């Protein structure tokens, strides 16, 4: 999950450019912005009927990315794309066995998904379990014509046969590391960055 803080690190959050000993920035705001511009072009290239697109962000990190992609698509094509928010928590496959009850995030699906090409947007893809859950959740909202997946970062460690259609950057990581999209102030407002934190716990995406 993206909201865990690194354990055993009592120092306050590092200032921009500062040194947080077990934290490295792998994508800064500019790199994120460039990746999203490229992905928007790839989406345009790969989809004929752009009016059918429906961007769906997986909270929390996927939501600002989906909004930025919508803005980019508008800039490229002049077409407005619907943006939805889809929380996957109630569809997780580890609730029953673990007994943990993570907080639920917002779901807002402003229009029907029937006959739309849904593009799921997540910040960090890993095991594929979040995408699996997102697809199950999506099917409860109707029957999309197709589903494609954007991940800003693909860190590998796939446990399910899930393919990411648009990747911002492949970042090889250890399983013990945590990769997260964040803003320095804890919000999801720009400037954003993707960091790798040591000993962040298990891969979860």
């Amino acid at each position: 999950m993206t909201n865990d803080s690194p354990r055993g690190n009592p120092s306050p959050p590092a200032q921009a450019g500062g040194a947080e000993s077990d934290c490295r920035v792998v994508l800064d705001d500019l790199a994120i912005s460039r990746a999203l511009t490229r992905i928007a072009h790839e989406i345009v290239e790969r989809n004929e009927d752009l009016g059918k697109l429906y961007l769906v962000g997986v909270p929390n990190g996927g939501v600002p990315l989906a909004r930025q992609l919508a803005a980019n698509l508008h800039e490229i094509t002049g077409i407005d794309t619907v943006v939805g928010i889809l929380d996957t928590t109630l569809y997780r496959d580890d609730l029953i066995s673990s007994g943990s009850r993570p907080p639920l995030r917002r779901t807002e699906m402003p229009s029907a998904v029937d006959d739309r090409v849904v593009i799921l947007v997540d910040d960090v893809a890993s095991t594929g379990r979040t995408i699996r859950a997102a697809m199950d959740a999506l099917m409860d909202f109707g029957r999309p014509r197709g589903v494609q997946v954007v991940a800003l970062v693909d860190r590998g460690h796939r446990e399910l046969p899930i393919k990411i259609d648009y990747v911002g950057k492949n970042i090889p990581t250890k399983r013990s590391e945590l990769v997260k999209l964040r803003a320095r102030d804890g919000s999801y407002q720009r400037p954003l960055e993707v960091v790798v934190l040591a000993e962040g716990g298990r891969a979860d995406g």
Partner: protein
Amino acid sequence: MMGRGLLGIEDLERSDIERILETAERMQEVGRRDVKKVPTLRGRTIVNLFFEPSTRTRTSFEIAGKRLSADVVNFMPASSSLTKHESILDTAKNLDAMDPDAVVVRHAVAGVPKRIADELGAPVINAGDGAHEHPTQALLDLLTVREEKGRIDGLTVTIIGDIAHSRVARSDIYAFLKMGAEVRVAAPPTMLPACVESLGVKAFTSLREAIDGADVVMALRIQMERLSGALFPSVREYSATFGVDRAKLRYAKDDAIVMHPGPVNRGVELSPDLADHRPSVILDQVRNGVAIRMAVLYLLAGRRRVEREEE
């Protein structure tokens, strides 16, 4: 904490209440979907153990469990065969041997859900026990007020009716006080418990004073049999003095809402017109009841005792 299930609002911290309300706000979205079902509690079993008849609350828990994909079993022992305390616990132990993941208990005697919780591995949710508590009703009231007003802190809430015999009143008093509201109660003196103000509420025997400036006016259901002499002279007199109608509501804030736990005795606690129209939010309360019970089941069902006690 919610370590032993949900037995009463009195046991909860404000942070527990916040967590339940936030979870319920997400569950509301599930209730607005075309397909109102999520797989979260698939394979879990929830037992509704109702020793006292209740269609509304039981149905609300049943719908809540089913929307989370749990299997919901209704167990309604005939009360005649269960008058002895031992046999209640016996029933509970038998149920526990069938490994439910949560047990929802209603009983006419205060404290029975706690006694059952002491025997069970599964979490117990109190769905109303005697004149003690009805926690999910208070939680759905909080959710409804927060939805209407955007906050609870600093509001004035007036509860009118048989405060002394009402589990809804008790749970609501704890709930609204913990969330930072000012709580007033209004009733004829015979329906006010002794020392009620020690709970932190202001007590009134004049409806007009109690309603003055209120943001929320909550009328409780009057048990008609209690009105036959001992507590109050007549239904008509109760209605004239403590029944809420549009004329009396003028003393409340202009944007005050009217609530009622249902079912309404139209023309007794509430004028018929108020019972069915704004500013009453009675049907929102019912709708929110499902979301609250989904939240409580999500947070509690299937959590083994060890996991719960670690919190």
